[in-house]
């Protein structure tokens, strides 16, 4: 922090007015109060910001109820919260329900297992965002971690009770759907995008166009609905594919179609000369694609890819309609209980905060990658 401070002083000597306070004053004057109009706008916005900020602070902190008493039967007495409605937040609902929101109907005593899985996911994301971990081993670590996550969630070995996946819920479901969904969708998208552009194989091309256009032209909800209700009708009696797996496949197909168009945009933006140079050097189609075309094409479209990732991460909440308990569904269900009805604000703020954390992390990572890849590669 201090290093960047001093370097900015060196770069901009006109701003170096000595003490940090006067630098701040200079910044304020030049950015916020440069003209009478901007001063008025700045003051008005400042007033609104302070007022709303203070109101929110009062609601969320000063007048908030953090805990509620329980009666003899152990039922929460939410009278205090009801009394404070509109004045103070009732965070007691979060304190009471966070385990259910995070892990759904997973057996209470076993919830350390999905908790570890969530930490594993977060660890994987964090490691994958670091350039120094980009080695072949990372793929292996991913594979091992994903198998471990599956094993932990299901159990049924080493004394861990078996937990069928219709009992899973909450954050692990959201992360599983999003991670496996994107991990499956991305290669599919690359293949579909390449296929759509292949001139030599009209059949492959038609297949890819049909896949992309059909899936893109259908709402995700109807796709999930088909996966959950219609698809089993076509299976022979006795054969049953798990509901979660069906939803997962629907997600892979859906995200794949959208990502395919993003990847295609990247492929199209690549100058033809790159491909020709690779051809002239004697590289084969897959060598050319993997070493020359895709690395450049994908870098071009990082912002769009991450945009799709973020949208897709939040779309996992649509599994609500087929009765899978993802994070949004558990949140909604938590306030179905009569005692807690009406405390949606608090719960939805919590959900928003969780979604935001993941999406913001993706967004920052995207910005970092863009910066990293643009180094030394101006043209």
């Amino acid at each position, binding site marked *: 922090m201090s290093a960047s401070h001093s370097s900015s002083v060196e770069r901009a000597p006109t701003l170096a007015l000595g003490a940090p306070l006067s630098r701040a004053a200079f910044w304020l004057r030049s950015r916020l109060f440069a003209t009478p109009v901007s001063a008025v706008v700045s003051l008005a916005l400042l007033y609104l910001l302070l007022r709303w900020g203070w109101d929110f602070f009062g609601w969320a902190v000063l007048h908030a109820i953090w805990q509620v008493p329980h009666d003899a039967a152990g039922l929460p007495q939410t009278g205090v919260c009801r009394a404070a409605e509109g004045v103070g937040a009732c965070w007691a609902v979060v304190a009471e329900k966070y385990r259910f929101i995070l892990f759904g109907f997973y057996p209470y005593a076993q919830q350390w297992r999905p908790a570890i899985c969530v930490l594993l996911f977060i660890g994987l994301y964090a490691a994958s965002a670091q350039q120094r971990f980009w080695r072949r081993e990372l793929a292996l670590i991913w594979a091992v971690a994903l198998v471990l996550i599956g094993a932990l969630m299901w159990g049924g070995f080493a004394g861990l009770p078996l937990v069928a996946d219709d009992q899973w819920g909450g954050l692990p479901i959201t992360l599983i759907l999003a991670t496996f969904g994107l991990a499956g969708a991305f290669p599919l998208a690359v293949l579909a995008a390449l296929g759509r552009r292949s001139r030599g194989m009209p059949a492959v091309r038609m297949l890819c166009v049909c896949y992309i256009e059909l899936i893109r032209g259908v709402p995700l909800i109807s796709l999930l609905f088909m996966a959950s209700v219609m698809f089993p009708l076509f299976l022979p009696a006795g054969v049953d594919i798990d509901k979660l797996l069906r939803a997962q496949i629907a997600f892979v197909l859906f995200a794949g179609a959208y990502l395919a168009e993003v990847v295609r945009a990247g492929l199209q933006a690549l*100058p033809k*000369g*790159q491909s*020709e*140079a*690779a*051809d*002239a*050097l*004697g*590289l*084969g189609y897959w*060598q050319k694609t993997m*070493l*020359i075309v895709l*690395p*450049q094409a994908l*870098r071009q479209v990082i912002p769009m890819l991450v945009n799709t990732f973020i949208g897709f991460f939040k779309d996992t909440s649509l599994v609500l309609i087929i009765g899978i308990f993802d994070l949004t569904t558990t949140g909604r269900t938590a306030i179905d209980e009569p005692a807690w009805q009406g405390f949606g604000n608090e719960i939805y703020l919590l959900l928003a905060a969780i979604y935001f954390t993941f999406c913001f992390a993706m967004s920052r990572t995207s910005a970092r990658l863009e910066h990293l*890849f643009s180094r*030394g*590669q*101006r*043209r």
Partner: protein
Amino acid sequence: MSEPAILMEHVQKWFGQMHVLRDISLSVETGERVVVCGPSGSGKSTMIRCINRLEEHQKGRIVVDGTELTSDVRALDTIRREVGMVFQSFNLFPHLTILQNCTLAPIRVRRMPKREAEELAMEYLRRVKIPEQAAKYPGQLSGGQQQRVAIARALCMQPKIMLFDEPTSALDPEMIKEVLDTMIGLAETGMTMVCVTHEMGFARQVANRVVFMDRGEVVESGPPAEIFANPATDRLRLFLSQILRGH
């Protein structure tokens, strides 16, 4: 004399309705240096790009280094391994360093060990006089430097034939010389070269033969001294006058 390095017989090509190559017959001997010139749109780039099948010809026969170009992928691989190409717009791979640009094909196509490929690449980078740029990315180099890297990259495949498609047309005037000097140096090693270029000085200095194309046909060909001194056709006379006026 042994069989020619490149043999084109009655080659024809159309882009849709447009007849871009009309009955081109041309043979280039091993070690020969041929300069192809002609007004823009004359089909000279298309012709040279047919030699390694960046463009497909539709009629006629092209035999390169004893292998006929057909839709057979094997034959194409063999030919592309033996034919290096330098493009007008360099086409270096911007996401790879200069060294990686040069070692990519030897490692992946020739299956050369990495160490050996890097030594080879450094040797050619020294020959084009930019070994000190090996760790940089193409975007950090000037146009002339990039084009010299592109020449080194093609040479790293140790091709028997080098094709140049207007290698100096995208360069600022002060950089043309460094690229031409590199090409002259290459010509002195006895490399078989086909160059599409408007650099008549270069043609005079290194070419065994100049081929003049116009409207998809070979109009005239011969040693540079003869062809420039006594153009036999009006079309070449007109072209030369325009080129010279431009200089």
